[in-house]
C-alpha cells in the first residue's frame, strides 16, 4: 500500500473522483463505481449497483409458478440451468412432490447443472484473462464454452435462456447421443484447459496482476456471508454439494479445491480446478443416467399427451386447467439452496396456497461479494480493480434482479 507522501500537502493536490461505469469496458454487467483517487491509489470506493433492476421479485408475485421459470433464466444468464433447478427444487419441496420426480429428470438436472457450471466458470475466467490482457486465453476459453453451449442447445433447444425445468420434471428429454456429445465436449475442454494452464497459470504478467492482489481474509469472507469459489479461495471448505448434498451429489466422487491466500490468483485457480471436478462428476454421472419418463405422472402437474387432448374430454379439461390456472401449491415457506458457480444460490419462497408465489426471494451469491469489494480494494491501485472485479464474476441480472 502506498502512503501519501508529505509533499502532497505542499502541492495542494486534491483527490480525484472518477465514476467508473455503468457503461465501461471493465464493468461487465452494469454497475457504477465511484472511485476516489490519489494519483493511482484508491482512497475510497462506493459501489452503486441496480442499473439492471427489473423487479424480479415483484414480477414473480404476479406470475404463476411455472411462468416464473422463465424469469429465473435471466438471473444468472451464464448458468441459467442452475437457476432453473434451484427454483424448481424449492417449489417441488413446497408442493410435496420432491420425492416423486422421476429419476431420469433428476439425473438430467444434475448433469446439465454441471455443464452449466463449466460454462459459467469458463466465461468468468475468459473475461478475467481478457481484462488483464490475455486475449488468446479468452479465445481458448470461449472455444471450450462453445462445446458446452452446443450440448445445452441440443438438449434444451435454446442457447442462453433455457427455461428447461418444470415443476415435476423437465420440459424436454435429452436426445439420443447426448452422452457422447458431452464426453466429446469434455475431451475438447480438457485440451483447452491444458493449453490455458500453459499460457496463463505461470505467466509473469498474469501473476503480477493477480498474486497477493485483492486479498480477503477468512474471517472477513465469513463475516460478509460470502460463499462459493470466493470463500473457498481463502481456504474455507464450504461447498453446498458436500455440506448439504442435493440431487445425487452424495453418490459422486469429487473433491472441493481450496485456496490458500484468498487473492485473485487463488480464485482463478480454484475455478480452474473446479472445472476438472465438474468434468469428473459428469464422467461418473453419464453412464448412470437411467431410462424412463422425465415428467411426474400426475395430471395436476403434467400436461396431457396431445392425443388425449384432442380425443377425450378429460384431456381437454386437464390441458385447459393447467394452461389457464397452472398448478396449485399448498401454503408454507421454504428456503432451498444449491451450489451455483458463484456460491450458494437460495430461493426463499412463501406460498399462501394459490397458483402464484406470495413471495419469491432470491439470495444472489455475488451480492455479498460485491459488498466486500470496497474493503478489499481500498489502498490498492486503480488497475487492481480490473482483475479483482473479474474474479468476483458479478452477473448483473443476479445482482440487481
Amino acid at each position: 500500500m502506498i502512503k501519501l507522501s508529505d509533499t502532497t500537502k505542499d502541492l495542494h493536490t486534491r483527490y480525484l473522483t472518477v465514476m467508473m461505469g455503468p457503461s465501461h469496458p471493465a464493468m461487465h454487467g452494469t454497475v457504477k463505481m465511484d472511485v476516489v483517487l490519489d494519483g493511482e491509489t484508491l482512497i475510497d470506493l462506493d459501489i452503486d449497483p441496480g442499473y439492471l433492476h427489473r423487479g424480479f421479485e415483484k414480477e414473480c408475485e404476479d406470475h404463476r409458478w411455472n411462468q416464473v421459470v422463465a424469469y429465473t433464466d435471466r438471473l444468472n444468464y451464464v448458468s441459467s440451468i442452475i437457476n432453473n433447478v434451484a427454483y424448481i427444487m424449492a417449489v417441488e419441496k413446497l408442493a410435496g412432490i420432491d420425492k416423486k420426480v422421476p429419476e431420469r429428470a433428476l439425473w438430467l438436472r444434475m448433469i446439465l447443472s454441471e455443464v452449466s457450471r463449466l460454462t459459467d466458470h469458463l466465461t468468468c475466467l475468459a473475461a478475467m484473462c481478457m481484462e488483464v490482457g490475455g486475449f488468446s486465453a479468452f479465445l481458448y476459453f470461449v472455444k471450450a464454452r462453445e462445446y458446452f453451449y452446443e450440448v445445452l442447445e441440443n438438449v434444451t433447444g435454446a442457447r442462453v435462456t433455457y427455461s428447461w425445468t418444470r415443476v415435476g420434471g423437465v420440459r424436454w428429454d435429452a436426445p439420443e447421443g447426448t452422452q457422447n456429445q458431452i464426453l466429446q465436449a469434455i475431451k475438447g475442454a480438457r485440451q483447452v484447459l491444458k493449453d490455458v494452464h500453459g499460457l496463463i497459470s505461470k505467466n509473469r504478467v498474469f501473476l503480477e496482476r493477480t498474486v497477493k492482489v485483492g486479498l480477503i481474509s477468512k474471517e472477513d469472507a465469513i463475516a460478509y456471508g460470502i460463499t462459493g469459489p470466493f470463500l473457498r479461495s481463502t481456504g474455507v471448505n464450504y461447498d453446498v454439494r458436500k455440506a448439504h448434498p442435493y440431487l445425487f451429489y452424495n453418490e459422486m466422487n469429487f473433491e472441493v479445491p481450496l485456496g490458500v491466500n484468498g487473492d485473485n490468483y487463488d480464485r482463478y485457480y480454484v475455478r480452474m480446478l473446479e472445472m476438472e471436478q465438474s468434468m469428473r462428476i459428469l464422467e461418473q454421472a453419464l453412464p448412470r443416467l437411467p431410462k424412463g419418463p422425465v415428467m411426474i405422472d400426475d395430471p395436476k402437474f403434467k400436461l396431457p399427451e396431445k392425443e388425449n387432448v384432442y380425443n377425450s374430454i378429460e384431456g381437454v379439461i386437464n390441458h385447459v386447467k393447467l394452461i389457464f390456472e397452472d398448478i396449485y401449491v399448498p401454503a408454507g415457506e421454504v428456503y432451498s439452496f444449491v451450489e451455483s458457480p458463484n456460491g450458494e444460490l437460495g430461493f426463499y419462497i412463501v406460498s399462501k396456497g394459490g397458483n402464484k408465489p406470495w413471495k419469491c426471494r432470491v439470495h444472489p451469491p455475488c451480492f455479498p461479494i460485491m459488498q466486500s469489494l470496497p474493503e478489499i480494494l481500498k489502498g490498492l491501485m486503480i488497475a487492481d480493480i480490473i482483475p479483482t472485479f473479474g474474479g468476483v464474476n458479478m452477473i448483473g441480472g443476479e445482482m440487481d434482479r
Partner: protein
Amino acid sequence: MSQAVLDKLKQRFGEAVLETHNQFGNETALVKRESILEVMQFLKDEAGFEMLIDLGGVDHLPEKPRFEVVYHLKSLSRGYRVRIKVRLPEEDPVVDSMVPVWKGANWFERECFEFYGIKFKGHPDLRTLLLYPEFEGYPLRKDYPHKKRQPRLPLLKPETR
C-alpha cells in the same frame, strides 16, 4: 438436525421466542422484535452461527403485524442452519440493525429498506441500493400496484449535469 438450536433458544429466551417449526427441514423461530439483537448475538457468539446468509422482508398484507424480516443463518463449524423471523407492525416498521453482529448485513438491510420501507435502527448508512434515491413508494409492498409508473425526474441543469 438443528432442532437442538431451537430448544436451546426456547430454554434461554423463554417468552421472547413466540413460535417455532421445522417445515421441510428448515428450522424456524419467530422472535419478539425487542429481543432480536440479543438473540442474534447469542446465536453468533455461543451457538456458532458465523454466517448471515440471507436477509429479506415479506409483506403479509391483511395480517397483523404486517411485515416480517427473515434471517437465514449458517454455522460453518457445526453445519447447522436456522431461520429467524421477526414481525413488525405497519405503523412502526423498525427493527434493530444486524450490522454490529455481521457486517454482511449492511447491503441486505439497505435493500430491505428501499423495497419495504422497513427501518433498521443503528444501521450506519441506510440509503437506497438498487433503486434511485428519488423513487417514490416501496415497490415490494403488496399495496404498491404492479403496473405503477414513477414520475419523470426533472433534468439537471446543463452546468451541473
